Each structure stands twice: as structure tokens, then as C-alpha cells.
């Protein structure tokens, strides 16, 4: 009965983060097994510092007050919620090597590697 959801996060703006983590937490709350594969700019979404201050895409700055008004949870809150719900967070090893990033520059509780990524990509991928 457990539906599997694989999400590929390859962009690094605040909007991208919401698309990824909203879908992930909603799916996980509905008992799906969820894995997110973070690659290239998508790594921003789980970078220790960067994920707390993701940029709003240029020209959309005025949405900032909308996020506040609607009491939309912050990205760090959503990430914590996702991890609590058992969402697997996988950072792409190859991108990390290319960008000279280490595992300790990312939030706690992530997995690194291409092996794990390929195994979770078997179910329907959703590209965000």
C-alpha cells in the first residue's frame, strides 16, 4: 500500500524549496515513502546556511509579505517536518565533488551518494 515518491530537486530558489518540501511533507503525511534527490542548485535547499535564506526569484520580491500573511511555514521548519516524517534526503555526490562541498556543510541527517540515489529513483520520479 505504501506509495513511493521520488523527487528531484535541481533548483535553488525559495519557490523551488516550497515546491519540493510541500509536496514531500504532504506525501509523507499520507503514508508515502518519500525520497528527495538534491542536485546542482538544489543543494542550496539543504545547505546549512543557505537553506535559511533562500532567494526569492527576481521580480517576485513582493510575494514575501504574502508568505508572512498566510503564515506559511519557513523552509527550516518544513525540512525538520519532512525529516520527522521519514523523508529521505539524499545529496548528489557528483555535484558535491564538482562544487567542492563536504557533507558537514549540509543539514543533519542527510544521505550522500549516487548508489542510494539510483536505488530510490526506481519509483515514479517527479521533477521539480
Amino acid at each position, binding site marked *: 500500500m505504501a506509495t513511493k515518491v521520488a523527487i528531484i530537486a535541481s533548483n535553488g530558489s525559495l519557490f523551488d524549496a516550497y515546491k519540493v518540501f510541500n509536496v514531500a511533507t*504532504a506525501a509523507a503525511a499520507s503514508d508515502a515513502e518519500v525520497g528527495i534527490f538534491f542536485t546542482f542548485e538544489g543543494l542550496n535547499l539543504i545547505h546549512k546556511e543557505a537553506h535559511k535564506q533562500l532567494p526569492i526569484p527576481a521580480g517576485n520580491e513582493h510575494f514575501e509579505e504574502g508568505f508572512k500573511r*498566510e503564515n506559511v511555514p519557513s523552509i527550516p521548519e518544513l525540512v525538520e517536518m519532512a525529516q520527522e516524517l521519514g523523508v529521505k534526503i539524499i545529496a548528489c555526490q557528483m555535484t558535491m565533488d564538482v562544487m567542492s562541498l563536504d557533507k558537514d556543510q549540509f543539514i543533519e541527517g542527510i544521505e550522500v551518494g549516487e548508489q542510494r540515489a539510483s536505488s530510490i529513483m526506481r519509483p515514479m520520479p517527479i521533477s521539480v
Partner: protein
Amino acid sequence: MSIKTDHVLDAKGLACPMPIVKTKKAMKEVMPGQVIEVQATDKGSLADIQAWAKSSGHQYLGSTEEGEVLKHYLRKSGDAEAKEDKNFPHTVQNEEIIQKLDAGEDVVILDVREPAEYTFGHIPGAVSIPLGELEDRMDEISKDKEIYVVCRTGSRSDLASKQMEEKGFKNIKNVVQGMVEWSGPLEKNQ
């Protein structure tokens, strides 16, 4: 209107997907068969909660709206109820109840579901005493009349029928199909 539940979750002011995320967490805190009330101001929570209940297998009872606040009622599923054998020997089919109602017979219908389940749809005139309270409230029911005990699927009413027989009730019948297959008239407390 307030409906008695086992747990109230305040998700007011929270945006999607927090209401269902919080609901999932709250469900872990209650026992199978118990009912929770989820309060939310997110308009989308109505569709979300219904879809969530469907995918997670819990029972969605209904929702009410009070001003800005939506109140959703959910009952936690449990396999105990489905697997339990019904073995109270005196049973009736839903159809018989419908005929008795049509004929205007003076029968007592005892609904042993949770108050929230009763609120969102019950047989007209049915008396509501949840199974968990039955032992203490049995004296509210007359021993002289024919009593038809009903729940959602006939399992809780099976247990209730046995409890009542032990306490000296003679004329009890379990309505075996229960409300899940009820096609007769429905009354709602809203």
C-alpha cells in the same frame, strides 16, 4: 455546536501542508476507534483532510464551519474492529429496521458509535450511547422494549449486545450490516 471527541487538534492559522502533517501526528496519539477534531482556517484543508483520510485508511466523519474555523472529524482506523468475529446470535438486517420505521413501530434503536459519527448521520430517533459509555449508562434504556443495536459495521454493536444481555436485557438484536450500508432515512444534528 460542540461534538465530544477524544482529542482536539488546533491547526488554526496554519497553511498547507501543515494541517494534514499535524493531523498525521495527532492520529498517532490516539487509540484505534477514537475520534479527533481538527480545527483549521486553511480553506483547502477540507479537501486535503478528505483525501488524506482516504489514502491513510482512517474514517472521515464530516466537517462543520463556524465563522472562519473549519472543524473536521476523523476516526482512527483499527484492524481489531474489522477482524473481530460477530457472534451475538440475535441479528437483524438493515431492511427489517427500515420496514419497522415505515410501519411506525415503537422500537428502540441504540446507536453505539462515537458522538461525532452519530452527529453526521444516524437513523431518525436513534439513541446515542457510545460503546465505551454503555456500561455506565445502561439504565437509560428501557428493558421492556425491543432494542436494536447499531454501529458502523455491526462489530461494536455485537459487543454492545453481549454486554447488555449479561446485564439482563432480553429483547436485543444486533443490526449486522450497520450504518455503512444503511439506505434508509438519515438524520443529522447540524
